[in-house]
């Protein structure tokens, strides 16, 4: 084998790009320009209406990203295709032919680092501006709470008791949505708003926007949440999930109607099924003692409307005048136990939950057994 001679340091040939290269570059530039124009005028809203102010901003960002990205992709793929064809080895090329032995080009590498950096900085600035608008609350907002369940959504409104299954928002009114979950992680996505937040148990995430277009829009869950995750959108009959953006008068009517319908609803969060206490075998005598120490400060042993803080509880499970408990649920031992577990907050005042009253599960079972004896 011949001895190895070290290669000279600066050994790259001088390169002149030919006319063909510049013609191809011009064609690619035209295509890139057309793609940019396409994304500027692309009728996105035909497929996806923009229902809130933020949607327009996010779409503007998307147009910018898509235009830049498509133009870049056209250039890269165009050159790849052109080089692959133009420099393809022909049938007559000798087996040992080599290409132009060029290793690098500092100027070229400098520019193709700097130009993308400029674009990244532009992208970052554009994104941060829009992000800032999304993150900062507009103030004077309507606060609505959205709660994810397996496999449906519920909503809470100020001064409306309990949870409702439809989300209505007034046009033009800044809205803050607090999203959370009663069980596993869900996600709350309204494509027409271009906004989404995960519903994480034990955590409240926030979305802020102002509705700008009346209509009925889908809510879709985008975080896998169990067997019927695919059902958590409006495509299925069982769990319609929509947000309605109403004109202010319509909204006011809906709100008044809902407030009335929900007057007797409980704000207690429904206990997860696994926590449902088994009520058999309660000790009524122990319950009576417990009632005297823990409950009698607020609840009389009189009829339902004899209030101290809460209602009187004599015959609460049998009272024909009050067949229902506060949340519209039937006055059954199970529902009473639920209130004891979760507490109550609403039209009839407040009651601490199980922990607040320092009740054990057995205490609750005993108390329910005792209440059963009051006829």
């Amino acid at each position, binding site marked *: 084998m011949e001895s190895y001679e070290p290669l000279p340091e600066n050994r790259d040939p001088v390169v002149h790009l030919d006319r063909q290269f510049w013609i191809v570059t011009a064609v690619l530039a035209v295509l890139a320009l057309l793609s940019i124009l396409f994304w500027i005028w692309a009728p996105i809203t035909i497929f996806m209406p923009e229902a809130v102010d933020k949607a327009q901003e996010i779409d503007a960002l998307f147009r910018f990203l898509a235009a830049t990205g498509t133009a870049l992709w056209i250039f*890269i793929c165009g050159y790849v295709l052109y080089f692959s064809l133009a420099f393809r080895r022909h049938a007559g090329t000798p087996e040992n032919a080599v290409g132009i032995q060029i290793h690098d080009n500092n100027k070229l590498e400098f520019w193709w680092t700097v130009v993308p950096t400029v674009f990244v900085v532009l992208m970052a600035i554009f994104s941060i501006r829009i992000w800032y608008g999304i993150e900062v609350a507009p103030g004077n907002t309507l606060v609505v709470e959205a709660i994810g369940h397996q496999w449906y959504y519920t909503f809470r409104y100020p001064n409306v008791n309990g949870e409702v299954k439809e989300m209505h928002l007034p046009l033009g009114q800044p809205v803050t949505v607090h999203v959370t979950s009663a069980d596993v992680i869900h996600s709350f996505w309204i494509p027409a708003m271009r906004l989404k937040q995960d519903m994480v148990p034990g955590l409240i995430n926030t979305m802020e926007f102002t509705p700008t277009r009346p209509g009925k829009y889908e809510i879709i869950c985008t975080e896998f949440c169990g067997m019927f995750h695919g059902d958590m959108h409006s495509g299925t009959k069982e769990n319609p999930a929509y947000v309605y953006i109403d004109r202010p008068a319509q909204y006011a009517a809906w709100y008044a109607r809902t407030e009335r319908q929900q007057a007797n609803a409980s704000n207690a969060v429904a206990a997860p099924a696994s926590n449902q206490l088994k009520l058999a075998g309660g000790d009524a005598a122990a319950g009576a003692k417990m009632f005297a120490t823990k409950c009698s400060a607020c609840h009389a042993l009189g009829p339902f409307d004899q209030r101290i803080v809460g209602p009187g509880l004599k015959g609460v499970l049998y009272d024909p005048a009050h067949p229902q408990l506060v949340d519209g649920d039937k006055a059954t031992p199970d529902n009473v136990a639920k209130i004891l577990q979760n507490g109550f907050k609403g039209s009839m005042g407040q009651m601490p939950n199980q922990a607040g009253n320092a009740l054990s599960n057995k205490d609750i079972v005993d108390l329910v057994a005792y209440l059963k004896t009051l006829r």
Partner: protein
Amino acid sequence: MAATAVHAGGGLADHIHPEPQGFVRKYVFSIDHKIIGIQYMITAFLFMILGGMLAELIRVQLMKASGGLMTPETYNEVYSIHGSTMVWLVIIPLLTGGFGNLIFPVQIGARDVAFPWLNMLSFWIFPVAGLMLYASFLMGAPTAGWTEYPPMSLQGQAGTSMWAAAIFLIGVSSTMTGINFLVTILKMRAPGMTYTRMPLFVWGQFVTAPLLMIATTALGAALAALFVQREFGVAFFDPARGGSPLLWQHMFWFYSHPAVYIMILPAFGMISEILPTFSRKPIFGYKMIAFSSCAIAILGFMVWAHHMFTSGLAPALQLPFMVLTMLIAIPTGVKIFSWVATLWGGVIHMTTSMMFAIGFLATFTLGGITGVFLAAVPFDLHAHGTYFIVAHLHYVLVGGSLMGILAGLFYWYPKMTGRLMNETLGKWAFWLFFIGFNGTFLPMHWLGMWGQPRRVAMYDPQFQGWNQVASWFSFVMTAALILVLINALWSMRNGKRSGHNPWNARTLEWQIPSPMPYYNFKHVPSVFAAPYDFAEPLPYRGLEEELTGAPPPVPAAH
């Protein structure tokens, strides 16, 4: 300068053991990096068949908006195991344990990796863990996707704990491979093989090894915590008892984002070998390609929370994660531009391997660009958790990693078997794959934008048309992969004999016989330059006897 640096022979680098003769020691419990590499590949391709079948089950299910083939429960199991298989049992083992083991030790002029026994252990954990993962089907497989977010994964069936154990074991195997490769590259390079003379595939493995070592430990901790909570009720992820579901997401993505680079950096290395070889040109901007790999690896550790923009991440954290993620576009762009420039002025041999490498440039670039879109928090708020993500990740992992793997398979197949794969079949496979792949995943971009969430067994009927398009094209893609499989099996016995260097490539593995002999090198060579100067003589000394019939040196006595 050269003469004094030439390796004299007979030193520590020449220390060799006799080749084992029994079938079991030679092919089953082998400590030879090449056999282990092939074992990894065969095992991973077998799992790829399983994972591919699951993928087709998904596509058949989604041909109808109402589902129909499977119950939602089964469907959830299927896509969870599909994702876990493809990430942990196919792409990572193929790129590191498979092609890494087979090629990079030879490329640095070493006789084996630093810890051959550890290497064997790494491999044998992998099929065991894979079988455990599939055994979880018997117990009720996990259903919450390959990410297994709690609290959902806490409700999962019994197999979810099995899944955690299996992935934990894979992690142990990965970590050991990372240590092994890192030490090998640091300590076992041939004389003269400086860092700036290493082939770029070695650079790919060199940068990947620390990722395997460091990131996988976070995954191990997360999996252990999940297992302990599921089996013993310790409330790591339960908010009612002081835990946090987001803790899992942080730990999981602290691994799984670097894992994205584990799955692409070695493929970058492959492309950086294949493009210059078939263009007969030095790789353009060698130093920038190597340097940008390092930059990607370092940045890769600082961007994990971009998977959590909608999870309730503090706004003050969203901003740096967004900007750092966008920064990754710069080193990645530098690589892509360098590859394109490598093609310019070449003498391009359009082999199947080269076609896959060029296809990689088109599809990976698209996946990279949509990655920048998703880095922008406002756009991510819309696209997160939808089919847009599914499209993006498959463009990167199939259009990137798998395209690289297929290019590498056609390229290095002769080094395993001494035969070439069939080029005609290969080109058919390329075109079917390229068309099938784009037809499957391109429509998913707009499906996601219009409102199809990922991980659903049924969906809004208005999306049925495009889903059917995706499904039909996925059958084309599968046909292409079956063609590659047939080609690989057929060529083992019937392929054209390749000789030692069918592609006129210049890295060290092509200077020794095919298949590569047990010792790799009869004499450890000396290296004088990077291997990309196609107009120059080879920059190696000491290879004179490699291709002659000269007997290998007598193994050191024990």
